[in-house]
């Protein structure tokens, strides 16, 4: 089992990559803090919106109807995640995988149909 028992040390490079990634960001912040001038004034802390003066507070309640659309977006997002590898390997997979994928898409389509019938696509 020498070949298949891939050791955890193969993932060490991933760990090092994460640390280097975080470290480089922290290092840049630290470096810019060392060399930048320090001059705070009030206008600097206003949110930047294309040089317009912001009106009102940015902490207002978002309409929670958005979440239904977000949920439905996730369905099709996931669908694409599965479609890509299937499309790449389609040549080897053959007819069986085509039928499987049609069933998968039909199930998702059914979900969309259900959501549509229940009025989830309407902006009330």
């Amino acid at each position, binding site marked *: *089992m020498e070949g*298949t*028992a*891939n*050791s*955890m040390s193969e*993932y060490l490079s991933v760990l090092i990559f994460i640390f280097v990634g975080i470290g480089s960001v922290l290092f840049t912040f630290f470096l810019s803090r060392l060399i930048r001038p320090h001059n705070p004034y009030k206008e600097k802390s206003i949110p930047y919106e294309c040089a317009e003066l912001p009106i009102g507070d940015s902490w207002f309640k978002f309409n929670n109807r958005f979440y239904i659309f977000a949920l439905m977006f996730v369905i099709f997002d996931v669908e694409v995640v599965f479609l890509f590898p299937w499309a790449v390997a389609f040549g*080897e*997979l*053959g007819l*069986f995988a085509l039928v499987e994928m049609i069933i998968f898409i039909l*199930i998702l389509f*059914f979900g969309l*149909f*259900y959501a549509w*019938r*229940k009025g989830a696509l309407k902006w009330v």
Partner: protein
Amino acid sequence: MIDYTSAGIDFGLIAPEIALLVTAFVILLISSIRRLNAFPIYIAFIGLVVTLALSIQQWSNQESGFFGMISCDNFGIAFKILFSATSLLVLLLGYRYMIARGIDRPEYSALLLISTMGMMVMANTTDLVVMFLGLEIMSVPLYVMAGFARRSLRSNEAAIKYFMMGAFASAFLLMGIAFVYGASGTTELRRIVADISFISSRHGAYIYAGAALILVGFGFKVAAVPFHSWVPDVYEGAPTPVTAFFSVAPKAAGFAVMLRIFLFGFADLEILSDVFWVLSVLTMSVGNILALRQGNVKRLLAYSSIAHAGYIMVALAVGGEEAVSAAIFYLVAYTIFNLGGFAVVTLLETRSGCRSNFSELPGLAATHPYLSAILALFMLALGGFPPTVGFLGKFYLFAAAIKSGYIWLAVIGVMNSFLSVYYYLRVVKASYFETSDEPFTPVSYTPAIVAVLIITAVGTLGLGFFPQQLLEFSRSAIFAFL
């Protein structure tokens, strides 16, 4: 081209799962075209009966297929039968309650079916990733079902709590699977078990960390101490038929998977036996002690379900064929009498305003002698009294423990059973010997719930006198598995 002939693509292996999914879709389709509330229940009933028949038909048909992702052995099929029967009983016992509370939406039946399908997937695989997939298919509908009474704050609280903790536990589980994969290069339990001594000698820390994290993930699902904190609030807040489902089906699914992973896949990791010894003692003791002073029957049954998880965990500590068959026996028995207990509570709660507090029980025996007798029977079974199947279940579990030399575990288990009798008898005492100034509102029986009560009561008593069938069932479920 990939050779599909050797992959074992056989849809007969997953026929019960397909039946459940198709039924759920038909229900959703019909309900989205026309607004019919009662009709979906009948479709779900037919679908579950078909599923049950298909599962029984698979019995002793040992095969694995779909590239080894699905293992249809007797162990898995036994759980398929258990899940579809449980689901059927829950569907029947909840019908009138959902109407009385105005939450008889067709989605309830569909969610119940999809969740049951997830459990079947969990029990019928030896691949960790497929187990995780099944767990999620099971859990997501359960979160929704916990919050099914949309207008009720408590139900919403239950759903959010269950969802938060459940998602957290899933993350632990997934991390555990990743560790095991990192150490062994596979997620397939049959390949892990073949090389476990090699793997643990080279990557000991990772395989132990993986096993521990997987234990946390499933410990949450079966409500083992110290992962039990969500149980009382969720059980109390969720609609009662949903609570009935929570207390038996996900627990059985969790134990099915744990038995497979820890007694089959990681059988050679000896420390696990000690870990389960401690967890088992903790779970049954904490569950029983906290149940002693509860003032609400649903909360009491919640803590009692924690304690029962502790008893079943004895099998995980002991290991071996006899313990596993005792665990299956106990799971089936527990499902029967616990569902029976919840059926009585559901029936009481169908009356408006009833929250099943102890103070609402007095007068039950005087006005409803049969119902209170049946409630007493289920309480005695939960406490493990002799003529019932509850006694035999505990007997086989503790006998298996003693035979393997776990004397103290059995002693602590028996002491815990004595302790639990106190609070189960409190329910009996409140309904028989206490009086209340307020008149007892009569309950209205429906054919469905009477059927559930009769099935569970006959099962509790009948299997107590004639356990032979169930014993053979649980024994033959084990032979394929080891």
